[in-house]
């Protein structure tokens, strides 16, 4: 799996980072100013411009190695969007992207802490712990932060889990009737190319969940609502055939990275 590497800080990018969504519209403008338009969906793409500074020798070597393996713009790699929630449909946990335990019952459109109705009420009607889980085709060895706002009228505990075939890490969260954001951060070992993010409910528990979010960084950003796609691009490319590295010292380099994807946009 060719993948854009994570920096030693656990982030994919540094501030400032820039992202551009591109669409194409064919427009026929009439004499009176009205228009006939046609959306050309096949031309959609997304671009990132990532100025990177003070990279260590190891960090710069990893990026340079990927650039050599892809030969610039020639080949694709997996890019984990540093500016996005990696989970799809985080406002509707009944969608097919979610693998849910058979005893879980869901109700969408619940009032959320931001004043909307994007929270989901999940009830475990079974006799054993049940999970709702989403598997993402992203490097299992990266550092990730899984976060969510959770509350429950009945209290109890919930587990936030990150799992690959090589192992699982989890955080137990004590929930109350007030909205509280909790998170689980860490990196798993192994070379697995997928990772599952899950929330586990105790038998008989009913909780309300908002803003389920997975990010390739060490702390949670403000919650980002998602629908059809999450933030992993399996066929991204460098948007330049030349990689210019400015060495500021023996252990510090700068580079400007531009990435583009026409897939999953």
């Amino acid at each position: 799996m060719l993948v854009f590497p994570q920096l030693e800080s656990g982030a994919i990018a540094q501030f400032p980072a820039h992202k551009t969504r591109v669409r194409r519209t064919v427009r026929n403008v009439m004499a009176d100013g009205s228009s006939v338009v046609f959306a050309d969906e096949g031309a959609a793409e997304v671009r990132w411009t990532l100025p990177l500074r003070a990279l260590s020798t190891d960090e710069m070597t990893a990026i340079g190695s990927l650039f050599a393996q892809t030969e610039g713009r020639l080949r694709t790699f997996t890019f984990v969007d540093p500016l996005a929630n990696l989970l799809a449909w985080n406002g509707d946990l009944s969608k097919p992207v979610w693998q849910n335990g058979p005893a879980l019952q869901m109700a969408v459109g619940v009032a959320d802490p931001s004043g909307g109705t994007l929270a989901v009420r999940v009830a475990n009607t079974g006799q054993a712990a049940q999970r709702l889980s989403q598997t993402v085709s992203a490097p299992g060895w990266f550092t990730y932060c899984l976060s969510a706002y959770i509350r429950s009228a009945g209290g109890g505990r919930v587990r936030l889990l990150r799992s690959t075939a090589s192992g699982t890490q989890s955080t137990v969260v004590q929930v109350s009737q007030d909205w509280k954001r909790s998170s689980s951060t860490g990196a798993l070992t192994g070379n697995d190319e997928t990772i599952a993010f899950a929330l586990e409910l105790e038998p008989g528990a009913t909780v309300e969940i908002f803003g389920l979010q997975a990010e390739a960084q060490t702390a949670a950003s403000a919650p980002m609502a998602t629908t059809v796609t999450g933030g992993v691009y399996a066929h991204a490319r460098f948007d330049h055939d030349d990689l210019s590295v400015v060495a500021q010292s023996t252990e510090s380099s700068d580079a400007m990275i531009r990435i583009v994807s026409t897939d999953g946009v």
Partner: protein
Amino acid sequence: MANFPVLRTGAVAQYPLDTTVRYATDAVRFVDGKEQRSRVFSQPLRRWTIALDLLDETELAAVESFFIAQAGSSGVFSFTDPGTGTAYANCSFENDELQWDLLGPGNGRVRVVVRENRG
């Protein structure tokens, strides 16, 4: 009809807000210097340049999602002029590109141009 997303403050824009009103005039000049002018648009069209700063990731994601749902400039949505409170039902993004910048945690900026459509 979709509506342009609001910020967590309840506003759709920040100051400074650039609003343009556009007419279209056809002018014919005769050899003696006289002119004959006629209007091409029955009503003027408006255009708003909205520069948003200090947006958090939630707000940036909402603007981005709205842009995707509108398929760039091909979609039509309702936009309420922040200065007058008048709702214009036939508006679009003017451009097919949306760039946003994350300058720090909870510190993003984006600039969009919304245009009123004819017909």
